[in-house]
């Protein structure tokens, strides 16, 4: 058994392109599942499969740091939070019809149109990078910005991009406080906030929208 992976002969067979297309295919299929599946919990699971494949694609595109981060942040935190939200709000056993008659076609039409537009711009443009790359390579910063190794990312992150890095931490702190404030009972808010917010069920289903359940 070859004792180390990285001296395996890569170039004889385009394994990474093949892998890329597998990941892309699985990602797109699970993406479709997310939008079409009846039960939201299954949509959640499909979304997680999609995130994992995206992490695979990042690894293939030469930056494993981003792949690990994606796994950690998206699959570990955001997806778990979404699943928690689904559990809190969804009644498991009675799947409800989720779209009215005309709505899917409008959405379909809009997104297909957008995709056509994007596809045209992408395939027609010629990305002439050769000239551009070496012109910026000799720029002032000591870090070699062309090699995507983790140490370079770290250095680049903290020297030229130090300010946005701190800003991001402020944003996350603000979200933390906002989320906690939202989760508390609203009856703390001043009395004139209309119907008491924590009445278990809103007094009357708004007559305008017929109950669709």
């Amino acid at each position, binding site marked *: 058994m070859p004792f180390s992976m990285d001296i395996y002969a890569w170039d004889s067979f385009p394994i990474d392109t093949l892998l890329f297309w597998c990941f892309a295919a699985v990602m797109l299929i699970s993406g479709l599942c*997310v939008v079409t599946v009846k039960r939201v919990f299954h949509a959640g699971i499909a979304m997680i499969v999609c995130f994992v494949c995206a992490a695979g694609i990042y690894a293939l595109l030469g930056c494993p740091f981003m792949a690990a981060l994606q796994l950690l942040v998206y699959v570990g935190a955001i997806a778990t939070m*979404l699943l928690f939200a689904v559990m809190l709000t969804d009644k498991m056993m009675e799947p409800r019809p989720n*779209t009215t008659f005309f709505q899917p076609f409008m959405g379909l039409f809009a997104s297909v149109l957008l995709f056509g537009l994007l*596809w045209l711009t992408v*395939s027609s443009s010629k990305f002439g990078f050769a000239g551009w790359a070496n012109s910026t390579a000799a720029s002032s910063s000591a870090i070699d910005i062309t090699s995507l190794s983790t140490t370079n990312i770290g250095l680049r992150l903290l020297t030229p991009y130090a300010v946005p890095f701190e800003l991001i931490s402020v944003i996350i702190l603000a979200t933390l406080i906002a989320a906690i404030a939202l989760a508390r009972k609203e009856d703390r808010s001043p009395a004139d906030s209309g119907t008491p917010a924590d009445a278990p069920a809103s007094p009357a289903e708004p007559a305008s929208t017929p109950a669709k359940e």
Partner: protein
Amino acid sequence: MYQLELHSVLSVAALLFCIGLYGVLTRRNSIAMLMGLELMFNAVNINLVAFAHFLPHLDGIILAMFGLAVAAAESAIGIAIILSIYRNFRHIDTDGINELKG
């Protein structure tokens, strides 16, 4: 032909973006809408990483990481809002929530 070209990655990301958009537009359950939104964020990140790989320039990844952080913050706030809506209306159908009194 076998080498990976940029525009193939970009088209995949664009397709994912459109799927996310379709999800946001058609889904009635607001949590599923949020999931569609997350798909769109992912598509954007794939684009950024693709440019970082082919250019090759480091800023793509750094921007992707910032994008990641903001997406996480945004979905946290989204879920908090949805849960407080659920507490008031007992359901989270996007059609049902149209009064502003709150």
